[in-house]
Structures are given as C-alpha cells and as structure tokens.
C-alpha cells in the first residue's frame, strides 16, 4: 500500500481499465457478430469514456488524446449519426488494440506505443467521425469552457433540508390530486415532472405513480401518456394555487382534485419514505417515471389512449402495479456479488499456511494414533472433526485462487486478428466456457500454449480464403477455443475447420529429420502425434508465424510441467482439434502412498488404473532380461521403482510385491512394482526443483503425517523410460 492516496487510486484505475478494455472488446466483438444493439454501442462508448475520464484525472495525455478521438466517434455512432457498419467495427477493433497499448504504456508495463500506428488510427477514426470533411478541431483542442454557457449555480438553501414544519391544521383534510397526462400534453412539450415539482413547492407533497398503464416494451408508444400520478398535499394549501399549476395543461390531461376526510400524519424529512410503504415498488415506479420522461419526445403524438379509470382506482392498487414497471424501466438488475480486491501475496501466504496446516494436522493425527489415548478419550473424534475442518479450509482457500479462464481467453481475439492479417486469412474466433474456473497459476500458464496453438491453428490449420472457397467452404475460417471441466480437470479445446493435418507431409518431414525410419508403418493417429516430437517443427519451412522458434514439443512440455496432457484429432478436409487437459490446481494431489525398499513414495491416483499382486506365471522376460507382466490382454513392462530410481532393490515380484498398473498420457502403460500400498491420501505438493533439483522419474515431493519427506512419482517419465528400453528404435508417441 502506498502512502499517497492518489497513487493507490491510480492502481485502482489500471485494474479498472483492464475490465473496461475487456468490456470494450467484448462489446465490439458482439457488434461484429451482429449480436449487438444500441445498448452495446452505449456500453462501448461508456468504456472508452471511462478510460478517458480516469486518464484525464491522472494527466495521461497521450491516452486521453487517443481515447477522446475514439470516444467522439462512438458518440456519433450511438447517436445514430454515423452508421455502425462492418468496416467501422473493424477499425474500432484495431483502435481498441491501440487503446490497450496506450493504457499499457501509461502504466509503464508495455512497450512504448507505436506512434505511427496510433496516428494512423486517429486519422481513420477522425475520417469516420467527420466523413470526408476535415476534422473540425484537433483532438488536443481544449474542450469548451463551461463559462460560455452562462451557467449560474443554483443556490441551495440549507433550510430546505430541515424537517418540514408540522402541517397547519386546516378545516379540511389533505388534498388528493390524481393527474394523468394525455399524449397532447407531451406533444406540447410540457413536462409532467415539472408540474409535480411545482406542486411540491406548495407544500409537503407525496407522490405516488401508477405505472400499471404502461404496456410491454415492444408495444410501448413512448409518445403516449401511460403514467398517472396521485399527489397528496396538506389541506392548508389553497385550491386555487393547485389549479394554477395545471393552468397550461388544462384539457391535455385527466385531472381530479379531491379533498380527503382523514388527515395524513405529519411528514419528517429524514424519515422513511412516506409515500412508499413498499419501497421496492416505489423505486421501480420512480425509475419507470424517470425513464419514461427521458423518452418523452416533443413531437406530435398518436391519439391519446383510453383514459384509465384512475380516479376510481384505489391507491393500494395503484401502488402495486403487477409487472408493468419492470418492463417500462430497466428491470432491476440482479445484485452483483460484492467483491474486495486483495493482494495476491496475502492469498498465497494463506495458501501456504493452509498447506502447512494440512501437513501438521496429519502429523498430529499420526502421533496421537501411536499413543494409547485415542480410545480412552474423545481425542479421536476431535481429530476427525479437525481433519474435516482442515479439508474444508483448504478447499475454500483454493477457491479464492480459482479464476475464470476469461482473463486468458479475452487476450486471444487480438492475437487472432493480428495473425489473420499477417497470413492473409479470414478468421472468426469463437470462444466457449470463459467462466470455467481454475487455479490462478494454471490460468497464467495457459496463455502461452493457447497462444501458440491458436497461431498454429490459423497458420497451419486454416486455408487461404480462395482455397477454402474452392473446397466449398466459406471464405472465413473458424477457430474455436473452449474450456470445460471434465472429471476434476480443466479441458481446453482448440479446433479449426481447416484442411486437417497433411499426414503425407508430416510423415515426410519426420523421415527427413530422422525421427522415424522410412519404412515404418504408422497409424493416422501416430502420424498426427509426430508433430509433438522434439525436433519436429514445420514452422521454418512454412512460415514464421506459428513457430517463433518454438515447436509443438515445447508446447507439450510446458503442458506436461503443469501436470497436463495434450492430444490431437484431425480429419482431412474438416480440420483439427487439440485437446489439453490440466489439473485444476497445482497445490494438492490425490495420491496413493506406497513403500518400496524402505522408502515411502506417492503415485498420482489419476494415473493408476489398477493394482494387483503379480503371479509368477504372468511374468515373462523379453529378450531374456526385460520383465513384462500380463495385464488383461496385453503385456506391460514391469518396473522396479526402487531400482529405477536407484535407491535399492524392490521385492521379488512373484512373492511379496504389489504392482500398480499406471497409464501415462497417450495410453502407454507400465506396472510399477513396489513393496506395499499404505493407502490413499491427499498430499500437498512441494516443488523439488525449488527446494532441491529436478530428478528424472520424480515429479515433486510432499511431507507425510510422520513428518518424513516422500517423493511423488513422475508416471509419464517412468513409463516412457521403460518403453525406451523395451522397444527399439524408440518412437515415443503421445496422444
């Protein structure tokens, strides 16, 4: 936290800018897809306007200048003075990219703005704003000074807010005025609101609106008078004064001035709203009134509607119009969830502490169970409750870090536009499941592989427009980016409707690069997966857009380092789909705790297919020395974990050991031979690389209940090592 409040507000501004810019882009994309309406244009205007407003407060001049030009065009569009056509929207999208750059530059977070690009867009925006005519004033021109309007502040009398004097007792009861304007009243540019204000000057007035005459929005004629009001005034008010207020609208409204017998209770200023026994209804009506009045035009109108029998209508009925106000006004928006902004450091600290708490709880439980007190006292039950509570705390804390993938997805439209422009292709990006939540660290690390795969999909997947047309497809290709939850993991799918993988070409390159033997017989799926092999990168030969020096093998590795898997399916002529699946969090893992040569190890539960006790007749030696075990109808390599990791020798398989059948990504299986299974447990992952160094075959470490460190096995590494020693030449496949 900084000391200067304005610095803190500035930080708020940049956070808010991110949201505004996202809204801006979302709005423009909706317009591009033809899903937008006037309110969308308005929302886009507001976003730009708000960015400009904040930037002005902090003296960010370059940003203000650009936003001003942008805003001016948006103002023309929302007023309907300029058409919001496709070409305009395309320009606006590029302008939003530059606005992003300006914000980043003002924040000091991005590269300096490309001045030429910015100036070019300013010129484009101004051309759209002013048509062919030269811009009337430069964007930098100072805005009109308020004084030139000759505005005089309206003095406020503090006495106005003093509690109203007790109403003078008068001979008669209070006045009840029922007033329903006809269309003619509005057509003559009279304003019901002004009349009400005049009335309220005569004395303490309460106003009730009857909006029940307002029809559904689609049949609403804003020129017609659909509203009526019931105004109550103290009995002391002169009737002539009341009639005088309506002097100029006589005949253009239905008016009844009645005197009540009963006396209304005195009215206090600060008291709860007198006219609103049901405040919600009252505000809805007020809102309806405010909206309806804003819409009231000055043009001659259609004939007045049938006057509603308002005079006869009891007040209670008038106060509770069923659904009408909701259609007339903006329906009350569902309350947005209340949020606070918290430094990530604090959340991370909390998560670390909860991780320690989980470990400590396990340690405590184990210690207690080793003593005799567990049966004799209520300690056992207490510990169980504590464990449940700890789990719940852990889940809740993890939920704090969960974020929708939207923050990554919303960066992609810009990328798609840029790549499309570079490659001369027409692309429409469709995103789904933006609200899917996943741990923040996972979200952050998703950006790179998604970026890369989208580039790939456009560059390699989609065909040029002419080729697409020739193949009977639309000139515009579609790339779909979707996120969903599936069995405790997040799945990201990137698919295109392009030509699909050119298998002949892929195989040719793989042979050329020595990745496979020329005469190897491979299935289509195996060929598709060749693109993930290290050393296979078609980027340099096809274009430099996708590659940037990085091949799919790097993408695959970065996904694997997140505990994820990637696979591809492709159909010639129809396109390809890349599917990544990732764990929802990197902090905890469901594991099977096993022991091997006096060490305790953890195998990720997700990878375990089955565990079994191997029988001698199921074990065979391949080539005289490599053991395999029969599992259902296949033989899988038998791996002695202790020997493979080099800390000992495992059990004799046929006698004492347990084999865990594990499946690596791509479906390759192995049987991990260990001494015994201790049980299932959720463990807190501690990075080995951070605390020690990376070890082949070990993914991470954890601390168990007895305080000992246990290594978490890297199943994929173990399986692929085995297969390398079993099958030669090695073809490491992934699917």
């Amino acid at each position, binding site marked *: 936290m900084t000391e200067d409040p304005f610095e803190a507000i500035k930080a708020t501004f940049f956070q808010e800018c991110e949201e505004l810019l996202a809204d801006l882009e979302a709005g423009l994309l909706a317009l591009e897809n033809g899903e937008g309406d006037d309110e969308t244009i308005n929302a886009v205007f507001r976003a730009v306007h708000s960015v400009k407003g904040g930037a002005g407060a902090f003296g960010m001049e370059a940003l203000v200048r650009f936003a001003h030009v942008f805003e001016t065009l948006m103002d023309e569009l929302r007023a309907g003075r300029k058409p919001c056509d496709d070409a305009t929207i395309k320009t606006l999208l590029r302008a939003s990219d530059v606005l992003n750059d300006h914000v980043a530059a003002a924040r000091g977070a991005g590269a300096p703005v490309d001045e030429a690009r910015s100036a070019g867009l300013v010129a484009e925006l101004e051309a759209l704003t002013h048509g062919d005519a030269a811009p009337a004033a430069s964007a930098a021109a100072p805005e009109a000074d308020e004084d030139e309007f000759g505005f005089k502040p309206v003095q406020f009398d503090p006495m106005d807010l003093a509690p109203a004097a007790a109403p003078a007792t008068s001979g008669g009861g209070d006045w009840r005025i029922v007033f329903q304007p006809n269309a003619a009243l509005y057509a003559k540019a009279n304003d019901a609101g002004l009349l009400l204000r005049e009335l309220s000057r005569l004395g303490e007035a309460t106003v009730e609106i009857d909006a029940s005459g307002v029809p559904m929005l689609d049949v609403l004629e804003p020129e017609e008078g659909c509203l009526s009001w019931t105004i109550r005034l103290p009995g002391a008010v002169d009737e002539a004064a009341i009639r005088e207020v309506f002097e100029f609208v006589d005949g253009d409204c239905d008016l009844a001035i009645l005197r009540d017998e009963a006396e209304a209770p005195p009215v206090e200023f600060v008291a709860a709203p007198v006219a609103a026994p049901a*405040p919600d209804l009252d505000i809805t009506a007020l809102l309806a009134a405010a909206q309806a009045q804003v819409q009231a035009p000055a043009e001659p109108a259609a004939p007045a509607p049938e006057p509603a029998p308002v005079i006869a209508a009891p007040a209670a009925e008038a106060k509770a119009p069923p659904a009408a106000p909701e259609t007339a006004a903006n329906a009350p928006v569902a309350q947005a969830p209340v949020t606070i902004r918290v430094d990530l450091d604090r959340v991370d600290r909390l998560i670390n502490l909860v991780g320690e708490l989980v470990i400590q709880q396990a340690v405590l439980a184990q210690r207690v169970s080793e003593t005799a007190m567990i049966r004799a006292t209520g300690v056992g039950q207490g510990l169980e409750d504590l464990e449940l509570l700890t789990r719940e705390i852990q889940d809740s804390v993890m939920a704090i870090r969960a974020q929708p993938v939207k923050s990554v997805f919303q960066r992609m439209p810009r990328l798609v536009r840029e790549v499309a422009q570079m490659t001369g292709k027409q692309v429409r990006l469709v995103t789904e499941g933006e609200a899917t939540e996943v741990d923040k660290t996972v979200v952050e690390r998703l950006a790179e592989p998604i970026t890369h795969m989208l580039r790939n999909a456009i560059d390699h997947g989609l065909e040029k427009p002419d080729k697409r047309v020739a193949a009977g497809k639309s000139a515009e290709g579609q790339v779909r980016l979707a996120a969903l939850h599936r069995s405790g993991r997040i799945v990201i799918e990137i698919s295109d409707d392009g030509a699909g993988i050119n298998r002949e070409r892929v195989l040719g390159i793989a042979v050329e690069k020595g990745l496979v033997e020329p005469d190897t017989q491979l299935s289509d799926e195996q060929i598709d997966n060749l693109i993930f092999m290290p050393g296979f990168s078609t980027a340099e030969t096809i274009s430099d857009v996708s590659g940037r020096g990085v091949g799919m093998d790097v993408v695959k590795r970065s996904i694997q380092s997140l505990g994820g898997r990637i696979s591809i399916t492709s159909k010639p002529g129809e396109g390809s789909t890349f599917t990544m699946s990732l764990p929802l969090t990197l902090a905890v893992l469901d594991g099977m705790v096993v022991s091997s040569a006096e060490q305790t190890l953890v195998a990720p539960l997700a990878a375990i297919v089955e565990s079994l006790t191997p029988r001698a007749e199921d074990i065979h030696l391949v080539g005289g020395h490599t053991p395999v075990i029969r599992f259902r109808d296949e033989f899988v390599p038998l791996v002695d974990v202790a020997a493979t990791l080099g800390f000992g020798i495992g059990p004799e398989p046929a006698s004492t050991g347990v084999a865990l059948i594990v499946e690596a990504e791509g479906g390759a299986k192995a049987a991990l031979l260990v001494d015994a299974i201790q049980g299932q447990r959720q463990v807190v992952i501690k990075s080995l690389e951070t605390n020690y160094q990376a070890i082949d075959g070990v993914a991470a470490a954890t601390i168990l209940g007895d305080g000992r460190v246990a290594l978490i096995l890297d199943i994929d590494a173990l399986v692929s090592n085995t297969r390398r020693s079993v099958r030669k030449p090695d073809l490491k496949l992934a699917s």
Partner: protein
Amino acid sequence: MPAASAIQTLIVDDQLTMRSLIRASLQQIGVVNLREANDGEEALRAMIAQPAHLVISDFNMPNLDGLGLLRAIRAHPPTSKSAFIMLTGRADKELVQRAVQFGVNNYLVKPFTAGQLKEKIEGVFGPLT
C-alpha cells in the same frame, strides 16, 4: 455558511476510480460525510432510504444515467430539495441545458481538481467552513 463536515454527500459513479477520486478530493476539502453508489438506480435507492444534502453524480452510467437520477430525485418529494452537482466528461452544452431544465444545481467538467470541486460546492452552498 455550512460546515463542510456537516454536508451529507452521495457520490454516484459507475467507476471505482472516479468514486475514489471524488472521495479523496472531498475529504481534502473537509467534506467527510460520504456515501457511494454505483449507478443511478443504486443512488436512487440510497436517496430514498436516507436523503443526502448533496449528490455528486456522473452523467454517463448504466441502468439509470445522471439525468434520469436527477429527474427521479426531483420528482420524489423527500429528496427533491437535495443539491445536485453533475459531473460530465465533456462540456456538452445541450447536456448542461437539459440538466438545468431538470433542476441541476451546478456541474463540473472532468478532469477536475479538489479546488474546482470546492468552488462548485461553494457555488451551491455558499462558502464552506
């Protein structure tokens, strides 16, 4: 000559940044009795629940904009006498005229300084103490 600290004020803006800026500026000039609302509708609810002496409202907001809020406040007797200062992003003559028509007390063009804000408030309330 009202005491600045006695003026109950409602800040209305859909942007957290602007609300924070207005709040900080008001606090600088001693106006400390503050509430905030996100948009016109929320402001109207706040005003009905507890009227304020002064409403400082943005013009351009979702749900109910500043003009709509002004009209609603003026149309509702318990709140009709509150002072209303409109904040606008641009000095739009037509907008100001409409606001005057609906009974705005003063208006202020963004960006503004705490000094300018004080001037505008004093234009309505007289010199602040």
